[in-house]
Every structure is written in structure tokens, then in C-alpha cells.
């Protein structure tokens, strides 16, 4: 057992100061060996982040406390180590990279100096040697123009570059253990792929043990040697990647895997001759920076976007961050005003209507937002939130509240939830409430702006199912904006691929997602993590189908 870099044995972590407080982590045991990547998988609230913070000794003082078990790093007990010793161990023996590199870096210090701080604190190297070391490390994480980036502030760098800086900082002292807490979740798929490859390569060169925390089965399939599945603070299953993906023994793991949407598009629905409900013609949005002296910088967020959506169909807009997909959605719902082009809603041009004239048309198009925790007013009861729209359009309060109860049942929540407040619901339930609110106005078009991206896979699957069912029942048209090709493959009839504000490729989902014509679409599909696995059927996708 000498090559166990990290040995967590029967660890429990509880809330509060008393030993009998509720357990967040309940008796988990994990080992990570040298040169090995262990993926800790679980849905939100499963305790995977708490586990990593316990190892690093970064638990919030006073609220969470390890109450039992042991955590050994190369044989040294960490739970009883002094703060001083832990400080020494961090960076030299163990290091961590976080999900959001922008908040993990200090915005007012150049990145080179931030890496330098680590070296200054833990080594006796002089300034010149340190600089040389840092530049070497930056080359190793494949940053371009290292001299320039050395002196750059974090906001000058892209998300991927920032994450590379974080990795360089973590690995500069060659720690034995690297903890990566969802390091690619905030990144685009193509960047994600690069970062995953980078971590793999660095691990091979340095022999680091990696504890990789993620909720994304695709990422697991890309990077893991072994997998540990967590649920509600307990370890459900551990095993080699192949074992867990092929022959999951526990019910929970099976459910988790079968919830992962497949990249293979669902069977196409027959073409319809239903009327067109939504049309965007040459839609454009340019952000102008106003300066005191005339024209400032211009940013084209959307350029000549044309799309049509028929009743009862689902149109997906896919693209990476900054591709303009959300801008298009917001222009269509008129949360922002397009600078050119037009939007026709049920045959009526709405892009040039004033706020007042737009009012009667608003109810025909409704939007569901990404973040279920922020899209419901925490101070307004669920029923009132849902009833707000109908009341605005002249429905009496009593009728609107009655309708709210029906809608809650339609989205799979008990009708008496009307009197509760949003904080009493989970993320998936809140998203159901947001959908109920959007449906309260009987819209022709439902715009879902990354509506399932913030949800756990199992919940995601349920919400997608709900949307599908609602579409079948009400004949509503859905404009589905997502960065996730898997989700797009499962719900969309047609897909629009966007890049830099322009439409790159457009067509039936089955066509675009299996036989892409454009290089950009191909690269997106290539970068989709875990595309070699058909998770729901516990087997690899036939190589022919994947590369076709």
C-alpha cells in the first residue's frame, strides 16, 4: 500500500460543533494511487466538494467539521495536522484547482506574480531562477507567448488560459496530489477537451495522483482510471472506469448512467405542415460602446441570424459561450432590442414595436432561464409568481391562482405548492415552477435559454421529458438554447449551430449532429466528452457510428 498517495479511511464530516450534528459525509473510504486519476462523481449535494475541501483542510471553520476517520497524504495524517503544517503541505504536497478560474485568481495581480508567490513562500530560489521556473511551467501548460502572459492580469486571458494558469500554479512545486474540483465545468467543450488532455499529459510526466471531481459522465469517460460514485455523503460504488460504465452494480449508478443523454439524435419526427409561429429574419445585435469622443468600440453579438420555427416543433440553437445564442434568444423575446432585422411572431412583426404596443404580443412568447435559483423572486410565493402573468392580462386573481394549481400539476408538482416559497424547492422543482409560469400565458413559443444546464443529469432528464410531454399535449413550439450537444440531440427537431454571432450550420438534428458539413460543427462534436460511450446502454458506441 506504499504507493497510495491519498488514503481516505471511513471519513465523516458533520455540520456544527456537536459531534452528533447531521453528517454531510458519512463514512467514505477512497484511495488514490500514484499516476492514477480517480473520478469522484455525484450529483449536487452528494458531498464530493466537501470531501476535497476536507483533504485540503479548507473546510469552513465552525460550520463543517471532520468528526471521524482519517485522511492520509503519503502516510501523513491530515485531520490532526496543525494549520502551519497544512499550509506547508498545500502547494508542496497537494494542490487544488477550482471550477471558476476567474474567481480563484486575484484580479489585481499579474498572473506571473501570482505563481511567483507560491515559489516565494515555499522555496529558496532567487528571483531569476523563480522566473525561469515559472516560464517553463507556463510552457508546459501550453500557454502561448509566455513572456506576455506572465505580465498579464487575469481579465486579459480567456477562460481556458486562466485555467491553464491555475494548473501551472498548482503543479509548479510538483505536488504528489492534484485535486481538481469541476475544473472544466465553466469552459466550452473545445477548451474542456484541451484542458483534459493537458491534465492527462502532465500527470503522465510528473506522476501526480489526481482526484478529479465532476458531475459529467462524459468527462469521467475521458479522464478516469477509476471511478467513485457518491450520493448523499455516502460512497455508492467504486471501481475501474470500464467496470463502472459497463457493469454498474448499484441501482443508483445505473440510473445515473441511463440519465446521461445520448449524443445519437433521437429518431426524427416526421416533417409537419403546421403554420410557422416564429421567424427571425437577418436578426442582428451590435453592442456599441459609447464614448465621449464619437464612436467607440463595436461588438457584433449576432449577425444576420435567420431561423423559422413551426408549431409543435423544437428548434435548437447550439454554440459555445460568446457565440451569440443567448443574444438571439433575448432579442426574440425582446428583453433586448435587436439593432437590425426582424422577428415575426405568429405572422406579426414585433421587433420594432414600442414597449406599449408589444404588451399584447408578449404573452405569445415566454422564456425559461438557466438558473432556477435566480429566476424566481424569493419573496413571492410560487402561486403568485405563476399567476402574475395572467393577472397582467386581465385574468381575475382567483382564476389565475386556480390556473396556477392546475399548471403545477401539469409540471408534476402538487397543487398545494402554490402557497410555498421558492427556497423550499430543489433546483429541478424550481425549474418546473419556472416552466409553469411560462405556460400560464398559453404561449405559442417557449424559449428555453439553457433551461436544463444548471441541473443534475437525472433531474435534467426529467425536465427534458416534461418539456417533450408538454409539447405533445399543448402543441407548443420550443426554441431551445443550449451548449450541450447531448441535450440538443435528445430534444431538437432542427438545430442551428452558431459561432461568433453567425449561423454556421442549420438543418435537421439527425443530419447536423451525425453528418456535419462544416468544420466547426465537426470540431464541436469531436470535443464532446465521452462521445465514445453510450452510457445508457452501458457499452462503447461502435467506432463506426461515432466517427461517421
Amino acid at each position, binding site marked *: 500500500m506504499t504507493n497510495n498517495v491519498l488514503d481516505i479511511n471511513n471519513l465523516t464530516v458533520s455540520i456544527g460543533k456537536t459531534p452528533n450534528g447531521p453528517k454531510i459525509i458519512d463514512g467514505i473510504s477512497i484511495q488514490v494511487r500514484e499516476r492514477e486519476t480517480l473520478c469522484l462523481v455525484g450529483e449536487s449535494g452528494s458531498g464530493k466538494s466537501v470531501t476535497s475541501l476536507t483533504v485540503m483542510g479548507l473546510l469552513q471553520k465552525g460550520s463543517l467539521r471532520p468528526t471521524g476517520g482519517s485522511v492520509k497524504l503519503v502516510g501523513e495524517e491530515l485531520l490532526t495536522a496543525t494549520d502551519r503544517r497544512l499550509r506547508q503541505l498545500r502547494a508542496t504536497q497537494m494542490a487544488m484547482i477550482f471550477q471558476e478560474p476567474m474567481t480563484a485568481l486575484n484580479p489585481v495581480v499579474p498572473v506571473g506574480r501570482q505563481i511567483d508567490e507560491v515559489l516565494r513562500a515555499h522555496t529558496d530560489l532567487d528571483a531569476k531562477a523563480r522566473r525561469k521556473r515559472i516560464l517553463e511551467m507556463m510552457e508546459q501548460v501550453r500557454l502561448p507567448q509566455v513572456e506576455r502572459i506572465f505580465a498579464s492580469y487575469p481579465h486579459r486571458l480567456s477562460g481556458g488560459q486562466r485555467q491553464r494558469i491555475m494548473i501551472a500554479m498548482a503543479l509548479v512545486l510538483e505536488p504528489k496530489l492534484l485535486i481538481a474540483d469541476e475544473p472544466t465545468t465553466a469552459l466550452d467543450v473545445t477548451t474542456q477537451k484541451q484542458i483534459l488532455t493537458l491534465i492527462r499529459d502532465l500527470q503522465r510526466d510528473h506522476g501526480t495522483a489526481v482526484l478529479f471531481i465532476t458531475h459529467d459522465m462524459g468527462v469521467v469517460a475521458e479522464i478516469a482510471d477509476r471511478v467513485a460514485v457518491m450520493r448523499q455523503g455516502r460512497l455508492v460504488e467504486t471501481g475501474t472506469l470500464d467496470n463502472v460504465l459497463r457493469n454498474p452494480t448499484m441501482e443508483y449508478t445505473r440510473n445515473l448512467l441511463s440519465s446521461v443523454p445520448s449524443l445519437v439524435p433521437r429518431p426524427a419526427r416526421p416533417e409537419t405542415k403546421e403554420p410557422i409561429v416564429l421567424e427571425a429574419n437577418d436578426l442582428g445585435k451590435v453592442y456599441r460602446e459609447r464614448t465621449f469622443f464619437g464612436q467607440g468600440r463595436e461588438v457584433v453579438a449576432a449577425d444576420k441570424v435567420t431561423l423559422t420555427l413551426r408549431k409543435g416543433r423544437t428548434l435548437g440553437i447550439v454554440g459555445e459561450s460568446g457565440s451569440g445564442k443567448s443574444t438571439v434568444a433575448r432579442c426574440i423575446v425582446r428583453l433586448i432590442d435587436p439593432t437590425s432585422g426582424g422577428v415575426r411572431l405568429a405572422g406579426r412583426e414585433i421587433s420594432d414595436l414600442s414597449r406599449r404596443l408589444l404588451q399584447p404580443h408578449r404573452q405569445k412568447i415566454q422564456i425559461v432561464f438557466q438558473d432556477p435559483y435566480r429566476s424566481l423572486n424569493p*419573496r413571492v410565493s410560487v402561486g403568485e409568481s405563476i399567476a402574475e402573468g395572467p393577472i*397582467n392580462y386581465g385574468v381575475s386573481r382567483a382564476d389565475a391562482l386556480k390556473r396556477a394549481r392546475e399548471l403545477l400539476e401539469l409540471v408534476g408538482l402538487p397543487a398545494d405548492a402554490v402557497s410555498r416559497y421558492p427556497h423550499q424547492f430543489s433546483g429541478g422543482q424550481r425549474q418546473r415552477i419556472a416552466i409553469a409560469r411560462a405556460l400560464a400565458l398559453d404561449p405559442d413559443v417557449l424559449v428555453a435559454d439553457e433551461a436544463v444546464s444548471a441541473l443534475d443529469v437525472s433531474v435534467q432528464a426529467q425536465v427534458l421529458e416534461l418539456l417533450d410531454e408538454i409539447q405533445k399535449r399543448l402543441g407548443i413550439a420550443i426554441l431551445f438554447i443550449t451548449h450541450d450537444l447531448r441535450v440538443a440531440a435528445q430534444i431538437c427537431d432542427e438545430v442551428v449551430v452558431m459561432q461568433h454571432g453567425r449561423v454556421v450550420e442549420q438543418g435537421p438534428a439527425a443530419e447536423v449532429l451525425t453528418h456535419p458539413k462544416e468544420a466547426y460543427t465537426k470540431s464541436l462534436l469531436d470535443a464532446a466528452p465521452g462521445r465514445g460511450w453510450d452510457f445508457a446502454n452501458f457499452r462503447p458506441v461502435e467506432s463506426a457510428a461515432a466517427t461517421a
Partner: protein
Amino acid sequence: MSIDSLPESSIPITRPLRPRFGFLTSTPIIAAATICLALIALITILAPLIAPHDPVLLAPSQRLKPASAQFLLGTDAFGRDLLSRVIYGGRVSLLIGIGSAALSIAIGLAIGLVSGFFRLLDSVMMRVMDGLMAMPSILLAIAVVSLSGASIWTVLVAITIPEIPRVARLVRSVVLSAREEPYVEAAISVGSSLPKIMWRHLMPNTIAPLIVQGTYVCASAILTEAILSFLGAGISPETPTWGNIMAEGRQFFQIKPSLIFWPGLLLSLAILSINLIGDAARDALDPRMKQREGK
């Protein structure tokens, strides 16, 4: 799957994020401040019942008497009972404190909501606010009082005006960040009118910071009123206010320091209590402050 099941029905149906007043007794010091302020308020409200003498009755034969059974704190230079004057003096101070807090919050809230939501009005309003903030508040108050004559109401207005910009800016900043919240955009897309959005979705966010700001405005208004009176620019000298009593007592400080001591003590106690309560309110209503204490 059970992951997405409803929370147990035992969870009480509560209105979240509504300011609660439990913090008033959270620590012994805060509790003491609350009791102290309540006592001062009670004494001043019941002044006609409690005060042993008429606070404005002149008795030249009883000038500058030391404390005795008849005059518990002695008398001032005109033979008026100091205790009665101090008790009555608190009425003006508290009235001005609470009145100017309420007034500045009402006006500042309206200005802040409007300028937080309308870009065009914002630049005009905020420049006016900048102008107001550029003037020293005491100077502005003296100018207002001397232009319109001294009475409780003009003093109240004079003290309130310089406080408005601070409240308006606070509200504006809250509104600016809250209007970016998706639930506000959701309200726009379900066709809610602007007044409805402001009242229902934006205004509630400002309540907690306003309660905190209100206590500070209250404390500083009481102090400003005392300063104005002390400078002779405030309410006319025969009306007892803490500031007036101290201003008159100043000339006799060497003979009878208690003329300054007692009103000064009450003034300090009142302001200290209000500030302590304000701090406690901020800690209780701002979750970030709670985290800092690691609770």
C-alpha cells in the same frame, strides 16, 4: 427518482428574507442598547406626566440652584428645572431623528428606484445628488434654517435634505444589481408593468439596507440638530432641546458643569444605542456579515 422529491411537509411555510427583529436581543450589549433607547423614548413620550416642573417656567429667584429634593438636577441660569428641560428636550431630538430618517428614506427610496431603473433620468438625478453631497451638511442646514426661519419643521427639512443623496445612492445601487436578476426579466416577459416590477420585485430588496441606513440617519440627525441648536442656528432657544440646553449652559460651565453633562449624557446614550442597533441590524440582515463571524 427520489432525488427530486418534495421537501417534507414539516417545513414551515414562511416568508423568507423578510427582516426579523430577533437581532435586537442577540447579545447583551445590543439588548442593553435596545432597553436604553426604549427607556429614553418612553420618558420623552410621557414627558408631561413625568417631568416635575414646567420646562419653560422662568423663576429668576431660583437661578443655578444645585441638585436638591425640589430640583433633582438643579436649575439653569433662568431658574428653570434642568431635569424637566432634559426630559422635554428629548422629544425634539427623537422627533427630529425619527422624522428625518423616515422622510429621507421615503424621498430617497423614490429617487433611487426611479434613477436605478431609467437610464436617462438617472444621469440627471445623480448629478443633482452629487451636487447636494458636495455641500457640507451642517452648512446646508444652516442656510436652509436661516432662509426660512427656525421651527421644528424647517430644522427637520434642513437636516433631511443632506441625507437624501446617501439613501438614494444606496437604493439605486441595490436596484441596479437587482434589475439584472432573471426574475426581473421573467416579470418583464410575462408582461408586468413597470410600477408593478418596481414595487413587487425591486423594492423589497432595498428594505434590509434601508433599515440599517435609517438608524444611521436617525443618529446623525439627532446629532446635527444638537449642533445646530448649540450654534444658535436651530430651534428657538426657549424650546428645550438637548442642543439648546448645552448651548445655554456653556457660559456657566465652570460654575455648574451639570448643565452640559446631563443633556450631553442622554444625547450620547441615545446615539450610541441607535448606532449599536444599526450595526446589529446590518449584521442580522446582511448574510455576508454573518459569515464573517463564522456563525
